């Protein structure tokens, strides 16, 4: 486990697909270091033997009948697309 509190905003922003400006990277670096120092306090708490809670209510494997039902039409699903053609979402070329 790496030593916490060493957030590298430039690197993490790249993981999160956020192309920050240099000014933003600098500003967030200072602010997030302060926030990470604050959240580190939870590590002082001994949680040995405690189960993690992922959800507020204890329900699991909730299913409904696997039955076909009406859903969005292709036209409705595409209506908000920034670029579309031939009933498809258009994106920049992925492979040269």
């Amino acid at each position, binding site marked *: 486990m790496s030593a916490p509190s060493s957030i590298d905003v430039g690197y993490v922003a790249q993981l999160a697909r956020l192309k920050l400006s240099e000014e933003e990277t600098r500003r967030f670096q200072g602010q997030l270091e302060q926030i990470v120092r604050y959240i580190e306090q939870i590590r002082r*708490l001994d949680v040995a033997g405690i189960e993690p809670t992922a959800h507020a209510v204890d329900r699991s494997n909730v299913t409904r009948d696997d039955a076909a039902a009406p859903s969005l039409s292709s036209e409705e699903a595409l209506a908000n697309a920034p670029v579309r053609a031939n009933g498809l979402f258009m994106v920049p070329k992925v492979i040269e």
Partner: protein
Amino acid sequence: MELHEFTVSEAAATVRRREVSSTDLVRALLARMEALEPALGAMLHWDAEAALAEARARDAEPPIGPLHGVPIALKDNLSVKGQFCSCASRILQGYRAPYDATVVEKLRQAGAVLLGRTNMDEFAMGSSTESSVICPTRNPWDFERTPGGSSGGSAAAVAARESFAALGSDTGGSIRQPAAFCGCVGLKPTYGRVSRYGLVAFASSLDQIGPLARDAQDAARILHAISGPDPRDSTSLPDAPPDFVAALGRGIRRLKLGLPREYFSGGMDADVEQAVRAAVRVLEGLGAEAVEISLPHTEHAVAAYYVLATAEASANLARFDGVRYGRRAENPADPLEMYGRTRAEGFGAEVKRRIILGTYVLSSGYHDAYYLHAQKVRTLIRRDFRQAFERCDVLLTPTTPSPAFKLGEKIQDPLQMYLADIFTIAANLAGVCALSLTCGFVEREKKLPVGLQIIGPWMGEETLFRVAGAYEQASAWHKEAPLG
């Protein structure tokens, strides 16, 4: 009495008796919005013609439900088919929801008319409504101050009598804190009480939709309309809603009110504490018994929350990639550049910070130290509440340590903004229900409301309404209005 001054209950009763039409109510509220909006900034957008058309349709038929003809405003992160749903973000400018949220379907089934869409912190991330990219909302009690957030537009619209009530969403206090700052009743239901289908997700294990209203009775009516199981939200609970309105008059004799000592151990304004303690005495006078209890892990709630909420947000907001909806950066050379620039141009500073923090706490090498650790702290916080509710029926705390702060006061200091939610966050982590109502006013240049938070156990909303109903019977704070 002017029409815009009605409560939901009064509006519903007068429409039912055909003394006023739903169209009259919508017109009165539209006029109020047109007069106040340029300065208040509580509404992001509204379609007067669409609202009037819905009202005329209700006027032309016999009552279809308990909210027949009553206009209600919606936070701009709730989906209404064909309507804009911007989350006060650039990245969703122009986006129109392709389906209705379950709460929207249910409001319509109850006969309500959709009035307009309220301002909010971008993607519900903030405590002041200043991170809205459209404009900040002002507090109707003092325009130099924030209405709180993130449902600040909903709270300000209700307080200013632009709407009889509004829906908001609450992930860490986003209904209760603005309700306290604006002098409304705000309720975060038990996690799972209300379907989240059609709510733009921030932190899925914490988000709940709930009402902001002028009094407890209105909140009870709206909660009843929007509650219940939903096959489209697998986290919704199977319980049908009980009669919340009936609970209001049931009295509080022998109810045990827990005062968590960690919430009263300094750190709040002296006059806020006085107002809260006076409210406790009022409730004791009505036959309830106050006992001191302990929630020992309270001090870790904010830190655990900002790990878990940002982790979930970073995953939820990954969908905004410029492919299927929303804005796309112009002329990207390749997909990676499209993602990076679309998201950098489309999200504001607070959303970016939270995505980065959430990505960090989930990243390789840090996941166990932060995310898993915070999930275990969440278990301890839930256990605190379970133990507290073995000894008492509800917990009473201030909703916020201080009344509404000034615009610009905390926006440059994200950590200070996070700490504004110190009393509301634990209820979301535990999943319990909590309601804020006005328990007095304090002077800060102007008169500002103070919120009392009543926290109930899982599915304990009826008990919240018993306490809130009894308190409102014995006090008149909820009748005070800003702006005349």
